[in-house]
């Protein structure tokens, strides 16, 4: 649907004006006020104490003005009437692919406080639509609704409510991490390890007595021409310890990231980035599996990922 077609349809919804007045389910009442002040922790006595309300110049107990909208909420099983402009505008933008929603502004004006026993009705209309706009969340439309609460014919409160309806996945791509990734330094003693990661193998040095060692040690008195003896690890292990790196910045990486010390099935421990998990969710003992990331033709880094 073209922007022009969306605007044209929105103008029709605007021109329809206010929906029919809808009565709140219950009149303004003390039990709902009591629930509200208790949940909000509001100890203003004018909402619960007749004498205090009169002292403050009210004719009796009043409802918190911020409850204006509460009296006419749809409730658990409520539904929007067909002429409700928010329902219509939502359908229009959903159909055009702007399926996600976030509220941006809510401005309430209270013309007077409500008294217990008063019956409130509500009307609303679409008052403004602007778009398409590029936002941090994606391409979308700002739609503004004007809502009015009445007791009889008297307007007691009004609200401007602005929503952004946006197309998910159309926001700016995440900023590429600055700088190049740091590549490993390869020495004669670690060359077998990095050759292994390139080959998709996690290699652990084996000493002459058969024991395994990581990181590799050099003092084996071998001739340079001789290969380091190693075994290929299964790649499975558990998180033995970890840190969440928040600062400083690391070239080529987005913060924060998790560095885990993993105890491999073969018994040695190995450091690496742990990916695919929220830092707050990492735990010691978490089962992980190695993965390999090719940085360039010369270097491939092992990393850890949580096994399902």
């Amino acid at each position: 649907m073209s922007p022009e077609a969306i605007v044209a349809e929105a103008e029709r919804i605007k021109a329809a004006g206010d929906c029919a007045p809808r009565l709140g389910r219950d009149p303004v009442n003390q039990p709902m006020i009591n629930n509200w002040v208790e949940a909000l922790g509001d100890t203003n006595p004018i909402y619960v104490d007749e004498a205090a309300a009169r002292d403050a110049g009210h004719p009796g107990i009043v409802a918190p003005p911020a409850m204006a909208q509460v009296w006419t909420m749809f409730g658990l099983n409520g539904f929007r009437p067909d002429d409700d402009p928010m329902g219509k505008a939502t359908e229009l933008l959903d159909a055009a692919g702007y399926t996600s929603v976030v509220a941006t502004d809510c401005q309430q004006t209270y013309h007077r406080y409500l008294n217990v026993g008063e019956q409130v009705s509500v009307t609303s209309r679409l008052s403004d639509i602007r778009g398409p706009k590029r936002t941090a969340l994606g391409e979308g439309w700002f739609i503004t609704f004007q809502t009015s609460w009445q007791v009889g014919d008297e307007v007691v409160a009004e609200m401007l409510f602005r929503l952004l309806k946006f197309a998910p996945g159309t926001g700016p791509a995440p900023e590429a991490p600055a700088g190049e990734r740091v590549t490993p330094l390869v020495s004669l003693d670690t060359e077998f390890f990095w050759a292994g990661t390139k080959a998709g193998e996690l290699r652990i040095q084996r000493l002459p007595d058969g024991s395994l060692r990581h990181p590799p040690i050099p003092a084996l008195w071998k001739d340079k021409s001789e290969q380091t003896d190693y075994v290929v690890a299964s790649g499975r292990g558990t998180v033995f310890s970890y840190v969440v790196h928040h600062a400083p910045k690391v070239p080529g990486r987005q913060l924060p990231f998790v560095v885990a010390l993993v105890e491999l099935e073969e018994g040695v421990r190995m450091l690496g980035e742990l990916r695919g998990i929220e830092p707050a969710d990492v735990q010691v003992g978490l089962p992980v599996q190695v993965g390999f990331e090719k940085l360039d033709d010369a270097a491939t880094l092992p990393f850890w990922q949580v096994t399902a």
Partner: protein
Amino acid sequence: MTAIVEPTSIQIGTTLPDLVITADPTFVISTALATRDFQDVHHDRDKAVARGSKDIFVNILTDTGLVQRFVTDWAGPRARVKSIALRLGVPLYAGDTLTLTGTVSAIEGDDIHIDVVGKDRLGDHITAKAVIAYRSSHE
């Protein structure tokens, strides 16, 4: 606790006492229900996560109510709240803490304008402007 502030002592730049709200799941859910807001993202963690949120989060009607409580905690029961304009920022997820701070930004006739900011761990959750007034002496 409700402190009575004499209108004469209020001037531009007067700061309000901070209000710290512990938004544990009980707070998020009880305020959502007290405001008759049954949207699942305010009481059902699994559904909130399925919709892309980290957890259940505080609803907008509660934010308005918190700003109202914050200004009348300070201004006392004789103050009338005339308007509350909220700009909504980062969510307030269950488990976080909200700290409300406020400053009198303007006085126009009987109207006292108060700028309110509510911060949580993610940043500014609420940026609001509230207007209150005391009854005129002739009333």
